[in-house]
């Protein structure tokens, strides 16, 4: 098989496979709830105590406050799985708000900007303030520890 044939064959194979997975319905996209978020946290931070979970309305993301290190964790639904990232002052590149979306941009190319859809714009402002307070607290603890 020449290179063009390999490319055409592979792209056709991808299309066929994706169609088959969708048609058979074997993939079940995750819609995050508190139980799933707790499970993700337990798997990644065994024994961690969860202070608070802020779930996105669309079930695609969550912001989790922990008692300890890390103090703040992002959870995102990734297809039928979940992925988790600790958030710190150093990792957080930008936190912006657009209507009822809180948008997290991390210094991490494996983590595209994450939208956390909340109830309304006021809730976004309140969560942003809580997050900054938590990150400042964690940062102070790190410095004290060092």
């Amino acid at each position, binding site marked *: 098989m020449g290179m063009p044939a390999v490319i055409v064959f592979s792209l056709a194979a991808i299309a066929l496979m994706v169609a088959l997975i969708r048609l058979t319905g074997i993939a079940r996209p995750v819609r995050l709830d508190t139980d799933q978020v707790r499970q993700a946290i337990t798997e990644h931070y065994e024994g961690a105590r969860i202070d608070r979970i802020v779930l996105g309305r669309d079930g695609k993301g969550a912001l989790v406050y922990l008692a300890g290190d890390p103090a703040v964790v992002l959870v995102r639904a990734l297809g039928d799985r979940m992925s988790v990232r600790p958030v710190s002052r150093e990792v957080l590149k930008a936190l912006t708000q657009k209507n009822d979306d809180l948008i997290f941009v991390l210094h991490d190319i494996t983590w595209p900007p*994450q939208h956390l859809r909340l109830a309304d714009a006021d809730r976004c402002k309140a969560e942003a303030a809580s997050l900054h307070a938590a990150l400042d607290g964690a940062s102070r603890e790190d410095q004290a520890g060092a």
Partner: protein
Amino acid sequence: MPEFLKDINVTTLAAPFFIALIILEILYIRFARRGGEYEARDAATSVFMGLGSSIIDGLLGFISFGILMLAYHFAPYKLPVNWLTGAICFVLVDLSYYVAHRYYHRSRWGWAAHVIHHSSQHYNLSTALRQTWSGLLTGAFLLYVPIALLGFHPLLIGFCFGLNLIYQFWFHTEVIDKCPRWFEAIMNTPSHHRVHHANNPRYLDANYAGVFIIWDKLFGTFVAERQDDPPRYGLVSDLGTFNPLRVATHEYAGIVKDITRPGLSLKQRLAYIFAEPGWCHDGGRKSSRQIKAEYVARHPEHAGQPGL
């Protein structure tokens, strides 16, 4: 050199069978309601990574082949190609694969290329095709130079390497639980390789074998799959994207970010490139050894078990 070894790329020839088996696996999971899971974007990323790998290998394969030919030129004795030398070459290639694979996991430079193969949270036949785009950069092909110096023709080495990769396809599955005991004792199997793809602390850095699991048993890296600790697949820190470009390059980006940090010594910068994955000068990340040690500290009753 037999003509059939020229212009033959066994992995490309096997591609239609790979796709056919993936389709069969999807149908099996659908109708048997067991045997693993598929996610469309995850599987598409895996096959796309395989396509990229084939293209890059096709374009740059002459470099590694050229170096093997150079080594073969200096071989004091050129072995004939027959069933016996073919079989010996296959075993030697598998041993070299074990060493290369161990290097991929124990040095961040190797890991930066190989992490792609472990970046899916699924374990199915499509995962087998999720291959690196930067294998040449690792220099791991140099581990096959001794085989050429022994007098095995590079075309035979390449052929055996292709067969090795083809063998490795079928065991990326949860459809098969355990194989017959004698087979599990000698050969790499779905059960052994599930352990290799798992991020449970006890399973990290285990079962590097390609075809023969005996290498892991000989060199102390074998860990058996346990029913009381089912494998969780993926990375210690899973990716948050299916984007193939990010999947292919993220560890290199991490290396660049780390070595350009201010205030590091040259030794620390080199360690960020070549030390074990997770090495960190300030304890901000953990290597698999540290992850295992912390797990044992939390679960002292598991201390001394295989992998811990």
